[in-house]
């Protein structure tokens, strides 16, 4: 009960954050999943972490509504009819967003917003004003930067306006992804996206070709960078810390032959329990209007099997074998990392969950970006901050992992101000990276206020406000502050031109 009082008295929480914390406390007072000792043991050891999803799942973690359908049919429940102009369109969307649940208080996916709005773009000036209000409204009310919008792959008038307004507003919310395909996206639009990203840390680039192949067509990028089925989503995301698992290993063989299979079993057991409760006991899929009106359907949901800390895992295993080398810079270490992920992928794909029909009854692998309290567990398969090699080596090292993670993996690159003078250079790098198998590429410019923490965005100025003990608007700022303090995200390697610049040869 003291904890409830603490929530009520916490000066750093906004009203909404307070209400949500209270609800979470209530949910967690239940124990309905009947978790077995094996799961509990490894949760206590911080090997398995369910990212505070709650003890009694009553909504899917990630809900990805079919907004195209909503624009076509309106909503009986919300008493909205099909929009006729840009103002009705954004009004309808903003209303629906407030009714899309997720693990947090806000929707993690708000649609391919350029193609949703494109039919209503008539007068450019009026449309720009509408889009500006639309994006401002989202930033101030959906106060969590896991809220994610997609644009592309084709250039549209709406897409151009969204980029222009994003650059002007400098807001961390929504997160934006450009679905990019060299064959479909115009070079001009790609360059404009890069310039916008250098100025405001978004959009990121998703490899449209790879995602389309993995999802048999349309897909959404939600939350950090999670690939999911439209009209569905993900029931849950549980993550395993390979970094902590490796600490249990007696040898490399022990890790591969005993620990990894046991790890996959306990993780999937936990996921199965959550999915089962959500589908069979909770009422979301029975009564929610999103389901009733066909904006999502149960059979388009899957579950996400997350991992973190591959780098530390590999380094621990190498040390066990008395071998030198670090993940990221050493060939043997990178190869061992690849073997670990390949094995995890095989094991996860052996597991069947009947409620994941859309993904062949398998869970999808997700390279999780970490949470604020992580300390000494690098995100997913990433190279630890401060140990990143040169850009080319970095991409070549990272790319082979991306194919294993349809529901999300990505790298972040921080550039200096020279990059803005030659954005085509970054496009060359993205094109090369995507050709090499990279799935997702994020960038930002060192000097800006908005930066990418791990998968989401924060304003440096808002972290400073929090440092001073004030309540802040966006709850991801708290996570960003944790990332800064525990994971050194501000120290990410700066990709700058060599001193060797051709001055005065």
């Amino acid at each position, binding site marked *: 009960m003291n904890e409830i009082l603490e929530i009520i008295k916490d000066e750093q929480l906004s009203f909404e954050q307070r209400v949500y914390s209270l609800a979470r406390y209530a949910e967690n007072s239940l124990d309905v999943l009947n978790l077995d000792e094996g799961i509990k043991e490894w949760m206590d050891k911080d090997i398995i972490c369910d990212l505070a999803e709650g003890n009694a799942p009553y909504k899917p973690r990630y809900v990805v509504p079919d907004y195209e359908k909503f624009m076509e049919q309106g909503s009986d429940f919300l008493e909205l009819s099909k929009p006729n102009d840009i103002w009705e369109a954004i009004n309808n969307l903003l209303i629906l967003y407030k009714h899309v649940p997720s693990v947090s208080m806000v929707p993690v996916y708000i649609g391919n917003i350029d193609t949703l709005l494109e039919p209503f773009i008539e007068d450019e000036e009026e449309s720009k004003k509408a889009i500006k209000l639309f994006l401002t409204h989202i930033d101030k009310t959906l106060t969590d930067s896991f809220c994610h919008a997609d644009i592309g792959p084709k250039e549209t008038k709406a897409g151009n306006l969204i980029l222009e307004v994003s650059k002007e507003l400098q807001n961390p919310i929504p997160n934006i992804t450009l679905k990019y395909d060299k064959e479909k996206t115009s070079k001009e639009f790609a360059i404009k996206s890069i310039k916008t990203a250098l100025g405001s840390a978004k959009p990121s680039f998703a490899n449209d070709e790879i995602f389309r192949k993995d999802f048999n067509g349309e897909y959404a990028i939600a939350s950090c960078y999670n690939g999911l089925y439209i009209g569905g989503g993900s029931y849950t995301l549980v993550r395993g810390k390979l970094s902590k698992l490796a600490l249990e290993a007696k040898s490399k063989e022990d890790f591969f032959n005993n620990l990894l299979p046991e790890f996959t079993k306990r993780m999937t057991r936990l996921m199965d329990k959550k999915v089962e409760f959500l589908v069979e006991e909770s009422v979301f899929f029975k009564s929610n209007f999103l389901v009733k009106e066909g904006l999502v359907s149960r059979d388009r949901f899957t579950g996400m099997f997350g991992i973190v800390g591959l780098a530390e895992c590999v380094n621990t295993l190498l040390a066990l074998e008395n071998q030198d080398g670090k993940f990221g810079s050493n060939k043997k270490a990178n190869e061992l990392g690849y073997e670990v992920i390949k094995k995890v992928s095989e094991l996860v794909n052996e597991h069947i969950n009947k409620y994941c029909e859309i993904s062949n009854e398998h869970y999808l692998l997700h390279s999780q970006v970490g949470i604020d309290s992580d300390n000494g567990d690098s995100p997913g398969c990433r190279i630890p901050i401060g140990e990143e090699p040169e850009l080319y080596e970095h991409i070549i090292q990272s790319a082979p992992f991306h194919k294993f993670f349809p529901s999300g993996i990505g790298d972040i690159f921080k550039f200096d101000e020279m990059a803005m003078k030659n954005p085509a250079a970054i496009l060359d790098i993205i094109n090369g990276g995507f050709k090499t198998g990279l799935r997702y590429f994020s960038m930002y410019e060192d000097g800006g206020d908005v930066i990418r923490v791990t998968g989401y965005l924060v304003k440096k100025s808002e972290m400073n406000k929090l440092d001073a003990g004030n309540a802040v608007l966006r709850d991801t700022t708290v996570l960003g502050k944790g990332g800064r303090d525990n994971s050194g995200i501000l120290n990410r390697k700066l990709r700058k031109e060599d001193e060797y610049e051709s001055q005065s*040869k």
Partner: protein
Amino acid sequence: MKAKVNKIIPFSNVDGPGNRTSIFLQECNLNCLYCHNPETINICNNCGLCVPECPVNALTILNGVVQWDENKCINCDNCIKICKNNSSPKIKEYTTSEMINKILEYKNFISGVTFSGGECTLNSKFITEVFKEIRKYGLTCFIDTNGFFDVEEVFDLIENTDGFMLDIKAWDNEDHIKLTGKNNFKIKNNLNKLIELDKLYEVRTVIVPNLLNNEETVKKVSEIIVNTNVRYKIIQFRKNGVRLELINAEEPSKKYMESLKEIAKKKGVKNIVLT
């Protein structure tokens, strides 16, 4: 055919359009007071002075020739600092096919390749061979040069090059001799020739207050490149890395740089970059 390579930068965003692999060849035919990487000027004379300076024994002498073990090297640059010959023992020789293979490793990630130096046109035949081959992969071929070459001698190279980035260091010949040790007749001539051949991508001038007549250089270059698509890159002199015993000059102020940009702009040059 072989060339001596000082350094390869896989990704560069300041050496021409897009992302480029920049290759710095050893040896130069000018010796500029403000040279930013003087260790690229001369070929190593195997004097051996640097060998005992290496803290990790990456340098040895074998049959009178200095050897460099790249794997041992920690890039402390002690060897370069001690060198009295404006050179470096950390030079790798590449055959044309080795160079082509190295470039092709990066081909998916780059718009093309830029050879720089030193003065890379001293190796014009080597570069021509490389360019002829890598063009087949859709890569563009650029040259970063001080302009001190005879067009007739490097005509093959010019034909196989998409764009030149040419230094015009000083318009006034006295200034030029003072700065580089050589006169600038050939270089000015080549400025016009490259424009005629539609091979000039960019002109570069480093601005050094008090030492050079910067206004005149910017004005004259602007008069010549106006009505072309040539970009004019006006570069701030920076003390970092230069031989301070040779040059006693201040870095130009932002305001001064802007005033030079204004001169170029007034002459009608559209594409001006300050850096």
